[in-house]
């Protein structure tokens, strides 16, 4: 009967729709950008591809935050740090791809090192000339930072607002560190002037389109993985730790390990998002560690709906689309609009857009179900969803009224 509900849940249907949508977008956008002629209304200009590709990276970042905040109650206010670290790892690969085409023509040292009169490549830049090495680092660096940080914090049972504050301190510390020239990451200019990725010109439209599609497919994969995690027994445990941590401990679970796993997976996802982001925007600098960035991620997730999988994606795309419009039309008002949006969502939509949508849908379902017998509602529902086992279907009256959208 578990599997019955598993396939029947509207939340699961939303997840599969989202995956299908992302895969479709990954296939259609290349056609709109490359095949459809530039004059046509259906044509997607390159700047639009880069812009929406950026939104997808933000969506992945928001999804990663949702795994720890929505499902486990860990409000990380430093998630952009993992995003930026993944971005820097990708940036280092892209810098080493420039080779002797830099302003100073040094075949080994990136321009900023020549400018600082460095003679040798620092040891931690070794290996970044190979993509596979960079790919490992993109996962490993944010992952191990999150593991170490989480191990200390969760074992010491730092929770709630105290944990949020130290995550904020973490990203701020990294911001200050990366600003320093002698860190060897380009100081406040960061890493830029990229030329190639995997041998393809990073500025060329086909490369941008490929990066867009890669972002959409990786986001689809992340949605699938997150969905599998949160619907597993471990996922139920995550929510249990969120709702009653001491109960889980007295049942014999190590709550700190439960949190640590989710936090590490989440940081890896954020790192991958950053790595996809950097070649699409063409720069990574310490500004990405700005504490305000991490807070914005929280707002996207809250707006879309935390503890839903689709919510953070919807939130990230909508808020960033609004930001793009505002910063063009009314730049000085954007921060007020963002702050106001957060206040409104907190006060009136605590479950976010997707949560409210789910409630509205199930409320309608209940109203539709009331006049007739349960079985009459059940039959079409079962036809519409082939995997259904009608006998075990939860009656809508039961499922919906207390509906916390259990994704």
């Amino acid at each position, binding site marked *: *009967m*578990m599997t019955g*509900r598993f396939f029947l849940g509207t939340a699961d249907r939303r997840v599969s729709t989202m995956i299908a949508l992302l895969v479709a977008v990954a296939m259609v956008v290349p056609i709109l950008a490359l095949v459809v002629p530039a004059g046509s209304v259906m044509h997607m200009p390159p700047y639009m591809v880069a812009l929406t590709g950026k939104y997808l990276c933000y969506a992945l970042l928001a999804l990663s935050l949702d795994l720890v905040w929505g499902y486990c109650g860990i409000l990380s206010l430093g998630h952009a740090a993992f995003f930026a670290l993944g971005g820097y790892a990708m940036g280092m690969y892209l810098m080493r791809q420039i080779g002797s085409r830099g302003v100073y023509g040094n075949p080994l040292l990136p321009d900023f090192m020549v400018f600082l009169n460095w003679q040798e490549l620092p040891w931690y830049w070794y290996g970044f000339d190979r993509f596979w090495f960079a790919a490992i680092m993109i996962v490993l660096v944010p992952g191990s930072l999150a593991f170490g940080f989480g191990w200390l914090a969760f074992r010491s049972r730092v929770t709630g607002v105290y944990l949020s504050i130290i995550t904020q301190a973490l990203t701020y510390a990294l911001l200050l560190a990366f600003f320093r020239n002698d860190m060897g990451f380009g100081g406040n200019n960061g890493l830029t002037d990229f030329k190639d990725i995997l041998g393809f010109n990073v500025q060329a439209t086909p490369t941008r389109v490929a990066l867009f599609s890669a972002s959409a497919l990786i986001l689809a994969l992340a949605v699938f993985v997150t969905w599998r*995690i949160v619907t*597993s*027994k*471990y996922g*139920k*445990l995550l*929510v*249990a730790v969120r*709702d*009653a941590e*001491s*109960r*889980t*401990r*007295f*049942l*014999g*679970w*190590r*709550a700190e*390990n*439960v949190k640590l*796993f989710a936090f590490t997976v989440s940081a890896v996802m954020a790192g991958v998002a950053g790595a996809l982001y950097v070649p699409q925007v063409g720069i990574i600098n310490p500004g990405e560690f700005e504490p305000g960035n991490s807070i914005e991620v929280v707002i996207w997730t809250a707006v879309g709906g935390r503890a839903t999988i689709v919510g953070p994606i919807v939130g990230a795309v909508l808020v960033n689309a609004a930001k793009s419009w505002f910063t063009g039309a009314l730049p000085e008002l954007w921060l007020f609009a963002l702050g106001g949006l957060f206040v409104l969502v907190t006060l009136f939509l605590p479950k976010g857009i997707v949560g409210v949508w789910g409630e509205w849908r199930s409320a309608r379902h209940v109203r539709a179900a009331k006049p007739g017998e349960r079985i009459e509602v059940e039959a079409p529902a079962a036809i519409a969803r082939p995997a259904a086992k009608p006998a075990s279907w*939860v009656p809508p009256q*039961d499922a919906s009224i*207390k509906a*916390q959208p*259990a994704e």
Partner: protein
Amino acid sequence: MSHNRTSRSHTILYLDGISVSFDGFRAVNNLSFTVDKGEMRAIIGPNGAGKTTMMDIVTGKTRPDEGEVFFDGDIDLTRHDEAEIAMMGIGRKFQKPTVFESHTVEDNLLLSLKGPRSILPALFHRRSAAEAKRIDDILGMIRLADRRDALAASLSHGQKQWLEIGMLLAQDPKLLLVDEPVAGMTDAETEETARLLKDIAESHSVVVVEHDMHFVRELGVKVTCLHEGSVLSEGTLDFVSADERVIEVYLGR
């Protein structure tokens, strides 16, 4: 020492001279008592007598400043933390019913079932027939078979108490510590809970902390009365309630 070991060997819980202070307040003061294997014991005492602190010490949440706490004869509980102690076989029900509100009744039990407690097995967990049967049995025992798919948040107060007791049973502990199981229950629910606990006591050791004298009488077991962090009186309920010192504490001077 050898004398201690033999005197401990038949006990499920052995507390000897434990004391603990918080900011100078002595919550538990040279407390000693033992519970035999298979026994059900009721602990009574006015507010602030140290009942909950005693449970915190036994379950590893609080470490005593001094004294010995042994479980099952020879396991020193002061050396272990909550999760380890839970895995050794001590289940604890909190005073305020604490269940996973956004999970169904069934999932609450699933998360409590005895089994591996590490991340990977939980991630790739598939429910076995044995587990499903165990959940069915417990649901029947705690009178919640028809609420299996309901969210725990939608249960009545009394049903949450039962669910939490069911979660302890799912752990398959040797000893259950049950803190105020009938607080806020109707009379009918209270009687039902007494029956439930008596059923459970047939195959487990149980320590029940309770204020409700009617309920304690219904359990019909040995009573330990705590006051200001130590044992004031111990014996049958009739003996304890006839004790001058107990009357003084409960009725005031």
